[in-house]
């Protein structure tokens, strides 16, 4: 892959009023301090020893404010005429060809400025803007008593929450993009009263065995944890037989037992467990409370669904690659990692060729295999976390083997 110029650009869209944004984005790249964009991270279920957590990119951006352009709205020079809090912020990765004739832009972060966490440095004349991910708006909205009613399906409740007007100013949602893993009827909606939209979403996602993602077009998508139905992204180590190589490093390789739960107990007494897996791997239990469902059969079904998803240990690893080589990777995309052992021919001989060499041929013998670890290319991984370092353009992917049984998760 040829190297081209790579850099980031940063844009903001200030609010025009409480409910609407200005029409045009404003580029603030020139105000960004060198290495002033922090790591960008988004993940689902990628925290060790748990599942059901979700979050997207939070990013800190250090900017120069010598002319007051990025100051608070009480400074008449500021571009934030209404409020700086909740202004949209977008970080773009740019790749420019060698003669500068074309620039490819990839949006790597969309978020909202959180003024509460932003800090001004009077000595240096700089501001560190903290931008929370798009889903942070969910934490700013509270559900009224009765917003969700008894008898509502989980999918309907998710759609209603995500369609709240203030939330809809940040991202859109369509009913066709709400596809939960387990759709159930909310029997007691009172736990949803007077809580944040984020807490409500988290409760519903957990119980429905679903995750919340955002498309490049700022659309909210609720789906199961199934891997996206696209061609896999291919990664190769230095000794891959095809001579390709695009892996910078592999870290934190493990067999996934830290995210395996072979027993799920809800509300203290409704438990589903997999006895053979408990016998083999030892008990690992996830407990939770679901207080918006009364029917124990439905709760049992929820527990069974969650147990089935996480009962088997699945290989996990972190892989680093040059972001410019592949800017299209998204959460839940499939990936293949081909890192074989290094084959070293016996001195004075040629390597054995399957379907061609003859056994016991002195000239062509089985090579030695050298190396500490290997990863088979036929393991089907899915992306559960992305971390991009804007200063080095190195992206770290956390990959988890697909599947729910010991024997599945292969191409």
């Amino acid at each position, binding site marked *: 892959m040829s190297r081209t110029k790579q850099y980031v650009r940063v844009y903001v869209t200030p609010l025009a009023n409480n409910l609407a944004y200005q029409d045009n984005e404003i580029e603030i790249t020139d105000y960004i301090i060198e290495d002033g964009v922090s790591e960008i991270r988004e993940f689902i279920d990628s925290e060790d020893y748990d599942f059901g957590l979700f979050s997207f990119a939070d990013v800190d951006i250090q900017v120069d404010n010598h002319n007051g352009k990025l100051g608070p709205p009480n400074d008449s020079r500021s571009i934030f005429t209404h409020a700086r809090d909740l202004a949209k912020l977008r970080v773009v990765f740019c790749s420019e060809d060698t003669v500068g004739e074309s620039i490819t832009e990839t949006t790597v972060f969309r978020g909202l400025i959180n003024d509460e966490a932003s800090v001004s440095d009077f000595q240096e004349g700089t501001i560190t803007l903290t931008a929370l991910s798009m889903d942070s708006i969910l934490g700013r909205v509270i559900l009224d008593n009765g917003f969700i009613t008894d008898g509502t399906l989980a999918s309907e409740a998710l759609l209603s929450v995500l369609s709240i007007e203030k939330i809809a100013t940040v991202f859109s949602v369509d009913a066709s993009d709400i596809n939960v893993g387990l759709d159930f009827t909310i029997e007691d909606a009172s736990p949803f009263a007077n809580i944040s939209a984020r807490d409500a979403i988290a409760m519903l996602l957990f119980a429905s065995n679903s995750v919340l993602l955002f498309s490049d077009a700022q659309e909210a998508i609720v789906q199961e944890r199934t891997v996206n139905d696209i061609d896999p992204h291919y990664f190769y180590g230095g000794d891959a037989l*095809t001579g390709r190589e695009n892996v910078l490093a592999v870290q934190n390789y493990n067999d996934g037992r830290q995210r395996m739960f072979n027993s799920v107990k809800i509300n203290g007494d409704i438990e589903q467990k997999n006895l053979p897996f408990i016998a083999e791997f030892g008990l690992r239990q996830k407990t939770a409370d679901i207080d918006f469902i009364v029917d124990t059969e439905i709760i049992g079904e929820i527990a069974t669904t969650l147990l089935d998803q996480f009962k088997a240990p699945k290989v996990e690893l972190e892989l680093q690659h040059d972001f410019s080589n592949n800017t299209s990777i998204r959460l839940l995309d499939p990936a293949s990692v081909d890192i074989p052992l290094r084959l070293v021919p016996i001195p004075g001989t040629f390597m054995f060729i399957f379907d*061609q060499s003859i056994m016991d041929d002195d000239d062509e013998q089985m090579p030695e295999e050298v190396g500490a670890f290997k990863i088979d290319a036929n393991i089907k991984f899915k992306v559960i976390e992305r971390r991009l370092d804007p200063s080095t353009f190195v992206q770290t992917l956390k990959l988890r083997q697909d599947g729910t049984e010991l024997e599945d998760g292969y191409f």
Partner: protein
Amino acid sequence: MSGVMFFSENLITIEGGSAASALVSGDDSVQSILDRNPDTYWRSVDSDDTTEERIIIEFPTLYDISALFLIGMNFKEFKVRWQTFIVGTWNEFTNVTGVGGAKSGVNETTYAYDTGYYTFDSVNTAAIEIKCLKTQVADAEKFLSQVFVVESRLGQLSGYPNVTVHNDRASKVRTAISGRRIISKSRELLHADLTFDNYPTASEYVADVELIYSLFHRDKPFLVWLCGGAVGSTAFKHTLRGFRLRDVVQMQIENVIDATYNENIYIAQANLEVNLVEHI
């Protein structure tokens, strides 16, 4: 030939979409010639000096090519031709220069080296054909490790900077509790430092420095041939790794170039150094 030689990057890789086929024997191993691995080879099956092996390499698209390497081979009598797109005819290269000097096409009958190098008038093609009849040891199985095809030769140094070759195994060294070492090694890598010390001011040497700067500004990697085609005891008493005919390596410049004039006199000799590292 002499002086370090530089070429544009190798065009034919598996990753890039090129594919090889062996039409007589050894088709199961022929992709090895595109994998950039010196340990893997295409090898014929039950061949001898009466059997002409034939390999075709097809490119994913039309390329302009003006030089090629056949690396790690035992061919004695062989030829290479290019194909006219769509029409499909096979043509001789013209204005060919090889390791042994000027040639009529890429045609050899008594070749004795393990690597072949040929420049020729540029052609626009999507396929080349390699035919081999005889081996340097009579009636041996034929083998070939790598084929490189490039668009252009970027240049050759007229002078001789100090060349330091680094043969790197990317070793991981750990100390065991006894104090002894545990060492794991990776594939052999080749890096080279070119140090231009008191580099002369004649025009051909000024051109050398300009060539180095052009490589420095190049975003794509490039092939480096430290021996520049020089071979044999008249060129090297010891042929160190890196200076063998087969040591054609894809590299890039990784350092900042710190350049000075001797005594800060602008019409005096120049001093600079570049660190070339093997590139993927």
